[in-house]
């Protein structure tokens, strides 16, 4: 088995080969990259998550390495013409540093903000957080993971005292007697994961899917619940109500391992199934069948994903499913549990090491004095020099260029012009900035607005670690160096830090503090995370190489890692998991006469996130070229819309247009569109920017619209 890079020449007869992982989603499928005279090719590899499978995104990932649209030189906006023009790195970085200095001198350190991404390696996420706090001395850093699994993270923290997407190995899915997927569509978002679902059903397990659409995943389910978007919480409370009335609550587990059940028991007493039925449209009989499968199965797993989480009540919705799991005694029981399907490639690691507005490395709270002391010690600065918590992503983006908001923004690995809710407004905010700097591989829609664009290395050109949806830390390995003119994000951060230093001595100091070498950064990350919730202290690259990754927490090199959490205790002060009573509440925006339809967004198999990468891959473009509006034939008939007709979707916040796709698999009161596309087909032009009060998650998954023939 090949796990390290084979030495070989860049070109010539000896093929160069490296075992690494796919650049896209959190499944982080194992793959081998091979470079020979014909170019770079992708080969699937046996790895415990994908077991030799790859979807079309992974197969075609290498196409971007030598893509004609790839950025290979910095771009700087010409003040005279207003256009982006190629520039030297010196000129581009000077422009950035001069701009930052001027703005911070004028308006203070917080006038510069940083926006990261869940696709960045652990090393980059860590370095970016550190750079924001002690390089820029700003409290304003957040990332697009806020739009991903932040609601599940917050609910996990408050219930279990720790947030790891899956607290057990993925392989457990294949052995579950009952598997409940809530708002998850892995058949489109992470297809190789479906191998585990197939295995589960081959083993006689029952698969239950909760989704407003008959998705590719729902089609495989033994039972599909099709609720109105935004009513998953009512469904969960009714399931727990039924579990109570049928005697399926694990009273012994509740007594020994949890706290707070009484309040939840009383709150779900008010959620008799017929009440949830009227709100969600899920028949009582189906609620009962689901509760029975969960309550009487041996190994039972409940998973949530974006469908349940991307709501202004996302945290409470996840808490409702966590309550259900706890009442049934699942978390910590072998083969059972609750988990969240993390989306982005390093969505898990990206939230652990300091990209989040309120966090420091190791999943530490930035307002915790002990955490500040520890991290400041590793960074070699006094703790009181660390800024306090910033604001969550949407609030940050929405404040840009306003009188009280940051005037400069540095974006790494994100494309909020496409991915943020109410995207038209965010686009205007970005335009209002004095300085927008974007580091990316391609000229994304956000980069196209920038004053300075910095071309960065791709996944096959860098080393580092990623933490997948199981909390398994993996090695990303470089096949080849970046092409001339392209630098790694770490090198860019190091260079900026040095240039921002006031004098030569300070510049030397900064260069030492911000190494561009990922192995050096990881060694420091280990020390910074030591003792934190996400403790990487015992994880070395060598140890990852020797096994199929290492599960955090892993505090010592000698000690074992943690494939399964919660077997003995939860990560709370008293070791008990916490119930939280939660109540259903209506969507932030309800339908009305002017906007009579529910709108929801999601993904298609051949595109990834904002499409900066996948929309540029020919095969993926052929497979999913443009946005579409999925609607039920009954609704289409009433609106006079035929399949393929261009339609316009309008909300209070904006509109987008795309061809109609008629499907009997969607509720007639709901329309759907994928959010991967830009321009006229940008679904996020209409989405709601109401956010969850705890997680800051925007309400991507439901708003009120009207639909008409364009």
């Amino acid at each position, binding site marked *: 088995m090949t796990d390290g890079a084979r030495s070989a020449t860049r070109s010539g007869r000896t093929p160069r080969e490296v075992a690494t992982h796919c650049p896209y989603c959190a499944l982080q499928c194992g793959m081998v990259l091979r470079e020979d005279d014909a170019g770079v090719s992708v080969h*699937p590899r046996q790895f415990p998550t994908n077991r*030799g*499978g*790859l*979807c*079309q995104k992974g*197969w075609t990932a290498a196409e971007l390495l030598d893509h004609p649209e790839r950025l290979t030189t910095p771009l700087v906006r010409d003040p005279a013409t207003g256009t982006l023009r190629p520039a030297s790195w010196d000129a581009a970085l000077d422009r950035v540093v001069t701009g930052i200095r001027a703005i911070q001198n004028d308006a203070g350190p917080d006038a510069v903000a940083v926006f990261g991404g869940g696709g960045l390696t652990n090393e980059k996420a860590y370095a970016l957080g550190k750079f924001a706090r002690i390089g820029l001395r700003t409290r304003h850093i957040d990332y697009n993971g806020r739009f991903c699994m932040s609601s599940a993270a917050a609910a996990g923290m408050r219930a279990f005292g720790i947030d790891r997407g899956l607290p057990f190995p993925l392989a457990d899915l294949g052995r579950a007697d009952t598997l409940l997927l809530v708002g998850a569509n892995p*058949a489109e978002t992470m*297809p*190789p*994961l*479906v*191998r585990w679902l*197939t295995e589960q059903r081959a083993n006689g397990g029952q698969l239950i899917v909760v989704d407003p659409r*008959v998705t*590719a995943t729902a*089609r*495989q389910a033994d039972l*599909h619940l*099709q609720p*109105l978007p935004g009513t998953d919480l009512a469904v969960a409370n009714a399931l727990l109500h039924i579990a*109570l*009335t*049928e*005697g399926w609550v694990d009273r012994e587990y509740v007594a020994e391992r949890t706290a707070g059940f*009484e*309040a939840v*028991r*009383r*709150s779900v*007493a*008010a959620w*008799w*199934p*017929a*009440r949830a*039925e*009227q709100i*969600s*449209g*899920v*028949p*009582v*009989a*189906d609620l009962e069948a689901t509760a029975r499968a969960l309550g009487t199965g041996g190994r039972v797993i409940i998973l949530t994903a974006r469908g349940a989480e991307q709501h202004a009540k996302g945290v409470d919705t996840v808490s409702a499913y966590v309550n259900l799991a706890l009442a049934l005694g699942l978390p910590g029981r072998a083969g059972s549990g609750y988990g969240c399907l993390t989306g982005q490639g390093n969505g898990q690691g990206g939230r652990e090491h300091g990209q989040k507005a309120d966090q420091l490395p190791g999943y530490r709270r930035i307002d915790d004095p002990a955490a500040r002391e520890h991290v400041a010690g590793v960074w070699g600065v006094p703790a009181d020099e660390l800024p306090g918590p910033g604001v969550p992503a949407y609030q940050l983006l929405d404040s840009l260029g306003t009188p009280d908001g940051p005037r400069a923004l540095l974006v790494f690995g994100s494309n909020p012009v496409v991915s943020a809710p109410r995207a038209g407004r965010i686009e205007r905010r970005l335009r209002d900035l004095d300085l927008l700097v974007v580091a990316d591989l391609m000229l994304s829609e956000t980069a196209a607005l920038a004053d300075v664009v910095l071309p960065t290395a791709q996944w096959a050109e860098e080393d580092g670690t990623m933490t997948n949806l199981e909390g398994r830390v993996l090695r990303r390995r470089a096949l080849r160096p970046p092409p001339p003119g392209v630098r790694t994000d770490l090198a860019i951060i190091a260079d900026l830090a040095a240039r921002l230093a006031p004098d030569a001595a300070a510049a030397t100091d900064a260069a030492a503090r911000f190494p561009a070498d990922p192995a050096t950064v990881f060694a420091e990350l280990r020390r910074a995370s030591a003792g934190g919730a996400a403790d990487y202290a015992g994880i070395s690259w060598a140890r990852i190489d020797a096994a199929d990754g290492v599960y955090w927490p892993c505090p010592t090199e000698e000690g074992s890692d943690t494939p399964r959490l919660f077997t003995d205790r939860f990560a709370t002060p008293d070791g008990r998991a916490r119930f939280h*009573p939660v109540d259903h509440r209506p969507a932030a925006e309800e339908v009305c006469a002017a906007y009579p339809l529910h709108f929801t967004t999601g993904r298609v*198999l*051949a595109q990834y996130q904002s499409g900066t990468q996948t929309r540029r891959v020919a*095969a993926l473009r*052929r*497979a999913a070229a443009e946005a579409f509006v999925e609607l039920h*034939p*009954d609704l289409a*008939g*009433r609106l006079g819309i035929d399949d393929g007709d261009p339609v316009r979707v309008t909300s209070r916040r904006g509109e987008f247009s795309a061809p109609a796709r008629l499907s*009997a*698999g969607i509720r*007639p*009161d709901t329309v759907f569109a994928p959010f991967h596309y830009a321009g006229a087909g940008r679904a996020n032009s209409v989405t709601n920017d109401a956010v969850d009060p705890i997680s800051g998650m925007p309400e991507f998954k439901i708003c009120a619209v009207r639909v008409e023939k364009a």
Partner: protein
Amino acid sequence: MTARVVIVGNGMAGARLAGELHAREGDRKVTVLGAEPHRAYNRILLSTLLAGRVDEPDIELTEAAGHGIDLRTGVPVAAIDRAAREVRTDDGERISYDHLVLATGARAVLPPLPGLDPANLPERVVPFRTLDDCRRILAAAAGARSALVLGGGLLGLEAARGLAIRGLTTTVVHPRGHLMERQLDPAAGAVLAGTLADLGVTIQLAVPATGVAADATGVRLDLADGRTLHADLLLLSCGVRPDTALAQAAGLTVRRGVVVDDQLRTDDRSISAIGDCAEHDGVLTGLVAPAWAQARVLADVLTGSDPLARYRPRPVVTRLKAAGIDLASMGDAVGGGPGEELTFTDPTRGTYARLRIRDERLVGAILLGDNPAVGTVIQLFDRGHPVPTDRRALLLGRALGTAGAAPAASPALMPDAATVCQCNTVSKGALVRSWRSGARTVDAVVAATRAGTGCGGCRDAVGGIVDWLSQAEAVEVTR
């Protein structure tokens, strides 16, 4: 705004109002006076308690207490002094209010039968309304082997089902020609009676009771047709009557219930009424959903968070859901009149559906038994949304229209453009082309096309196509 709010009643309506007030901003003192000595409980779960499926703590509801809410249980109110703006408790305590809310609920109606003294009910004869009633029934049911239930309405049937689950031989006596005649038509009533019979509940229809006799050993119920029924226990479920005594004594306008306007005010602007005791627009609700809607509106008005809030009744959905029974009835399902009518009956399987449609909207429905569309029907009715063009979707639910396209019986019939592998967008045509280019095994075809390398779900289909190509080789390849 209002400084001192006194709520009389800690049932489903009163407790909910306290919670609604608790959740809203503002500085106020709320006193809740519950006549029953218990914590607030969910009346809907009493039949589940009767069935022995849950214990008393499991039916407790979230109570708003503390933070300006003074909750006092076991404190019946004796009178209202409107002039002094005070209520007087049975103990003689006087409690001042700026605003008074009556949430006194309803009481079980006891039928005027010889042998039945409302003031002195025998131990084995119990109405079914409160937790204390439930306790008495359970006490009487311990050691009992049979039970009679007088009244075949919603609550009576739920209770009968609960007693049957406990193992009691249970008989329901109903004076009308079919069960739940307010919600069901005779056909549905007949199907329901059949379902109940299968669950061990005997039904006696169209026969009024004429007398009751009870002693320490059992109960006898005399029927109008001359028969007598014997059992260890008689449960009375003959309807409820709003508890309006306080309002009446205080001189408020009372018809069947305490009359309230759209803001739930009585004719005294300082007094409101909600829930089972209130009569709005000539209608008594008797259900939880409208009571909670009233609580929300009243909280909006009292706290000033929406001073113009108005209670707008929504169409009522009646749902009987007990183990083995699945019944939904809504709107005007029984009456005739213009419009379309759809019915489906499968008495053997206990399934019945009747839908009434006018102007593309549901005006009433009865769904009994296994009706997968019940959630859809309820939402369409509740929201007044247009019904599907193909009405069968309402009767057959998920069985219609949502199934994935069936795979073609033979690969030969599959169009070339058909996508076989979704994960890698591989069409049948691409698989055939790979074969023609020399791939001769499943593995070779997979390697050439990447079909089956994602979720793996199409491997069988790819195998089928390779088999077909092998057999048709002479025809296909030489062409």
